[in-house]
């Protein structure tokens, strides 16, 4: 039988949360970092995970839920391991973002919730990711950015995610401003 997760923080994790608590004048303020930690540990924020955060910080469950439910990056439902969030906002909306999202959906065989056929990858539309100059852009599972998306880039990305390979950080170089002859 599959492991049922034990809803506990390890001593090291408790220490990590305490480090956050120490940054603020009130321990309640550590709720977001604690939720981040819980999500990284359990993959999503189940009621049990949120209860654990509540107990750890001595907060009512309703408060923790009220915070978690406000933000899109906290997953309140069990989700597949990898997320492809394609920006379809503003600049991306006119540079191929929506088309790229459709392409991702088709490639992974997404259902109405964006969950792929084999349950390993899901996708959804993102609001502006703050990388409009490299539009269209996608974010992978709350971390890596993939800039200047093309169908080929999506193919490669999905292949990597299917193999659980890490997506490398890509630094966008500063433009060389010295020459404006054209």
């Amino acid at each position, binding site marked *: 039988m599959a492991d049922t997760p034990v809803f506990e923080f390890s001593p090291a994790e408790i220490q990590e949360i305490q480090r956050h608590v120490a940054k603020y004048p009130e321990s309640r303020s550590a709720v977001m970092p604690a939720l981040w930690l819980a999500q990284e540990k359990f993959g999503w924020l189940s009621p049990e995970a949120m209860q654990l955060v509540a107990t750890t910080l001595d907060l009512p469950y309703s408060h923790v839920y009220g*915070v978690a439910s406000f933000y899109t990056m906290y997953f309140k439902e069990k989700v597949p391991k990898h997320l492809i969030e394609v920006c379809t906002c503003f600049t991306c909306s006119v540079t191929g973002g929506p088309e790229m999202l459709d392409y991702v959906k088709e490639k992974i065989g997404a259902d109405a919730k964006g969950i792929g056929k084999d349950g390993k990858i899901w996708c959804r539309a993102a609001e*502006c990711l703050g990388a409009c100059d490299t539009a269209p852009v996608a974010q992978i599972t709350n971390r890596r950015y993939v800039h200047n998306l093309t169908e080929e880039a999506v193919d490669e990305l999905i292949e990597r995610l299917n193999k659980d390979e890490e997506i490398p950080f890509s630094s966008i170089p500063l433009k060389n401003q010295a020459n404006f002859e054209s």
Partner: protein
Amino acid sequence: MGDWRTYQKNLLPDIPNFHKIEVYEKEGKGYQALRAVLTDPKWDRKTVVNEVKDANIRGRGGAGFNAGLKWSFMPPKQEGLPRYLACNGDESEPGTCKDRRLFEYNPHTIIEGAIIACYAMEMDAAYIYIRGEYADWIDIMQNALDEAYAKGYAGKNIMGSGVDIGVYLHKGAGAYICGEETSLMESLEGKRPYPRSKPPFPAQVGLWGKPTTINNVETLGHVPYVIRNGSEWYKSIGAANQPGPMLYGISGHVNRPGVYEFPSGMLITDLIYTVAGGIKGGKKLKAVVPGGSSVPVLTAEMIEGITMDADSLRTRGTLLGTAGMCVLDETTDMVKFLLRVSKFYDHESCGQCTPCREGTGWLVKILKKIDSGQGTMRDLDMLISLCDNMEGKTVCALADAAAWPVRNTLTRFRSEFEAKVKQSTFAMAR
């Protein structure tokens, strides 16, 4: 002032590894401004505030308020009552992509600027709030911060001056509204981030109920340059009414989109046609949104002779915002574009105020109807009347930010909307 073509970059210099503290110190005179402020008797707190005020660093978060003037609104220090600086790195206004570059390429100028600000306003700590999506850049900032702490430039007894200032990072989790100053404070405090009604203003009742000033991270990043080089130097760069270096984020249908540092007040046409290499595919320009999705759009004709500073943009009824410029070519469907922008504000409304919660939803509904060819002329009037009922009637400015693009896109590209609505089928009375 000099020509922008020969401008030497400050905030985003072409120096490898500038994000590392040794390079920042050696090649960028890094932390010398902080050292001067903390150890040179010439720089008492008031002098720092006055220098920054005189430089007229206009807030880079969107509203363009003089940073030093804002600093001077802090009440006199009360012994035993802590005070805080909130540094806004939420960068979520669509079209804006400059703060991320600063986190990556010049993180220390933000940290140094924040500590100088804390010193000037007698604050105990600075909280740098960064949107959760920027996980990788938060790591870069954390490394920079660890370096600064290790060198004794942050924390207790900074540079042996006896001054204690803590600097902390706070990671968001995906909510545009947290960029609004009071929502950011609620979020930092660990509450559901509903914006607060003002007054009281943050300088009186801010973070954890204590006197607080909030600045955009780029605004703070300008501060070390002003202290090192003086306000006269700063004012000699760019537009008189809005001086200093400017990070132009140019996106959309151009050949070379990017974030470019140049003096403020550049001609929009220079930015589009020379810096960004002109319109992609040789197409014609249709529209420019000069400073993030909420500012009024300009038609191609309107940009002629207009420069990127508040005074010049005002003559065309628009704003500088965040200087994140989106360039749209002749193929752009302005109705669809506006619909997507409206969906953003509908998605991001916190739902606290009825005009915003309901208004943003109705804007989307009506725009969808128009876009699908089912709209009527009356729907166009309805959009304007919805805007009338949203602007200036809510707790925070998100409702205004949602209404402005609708009002202005509809007014300035009316024929595109009219072309999509159903023609009246009633026969004219004879």
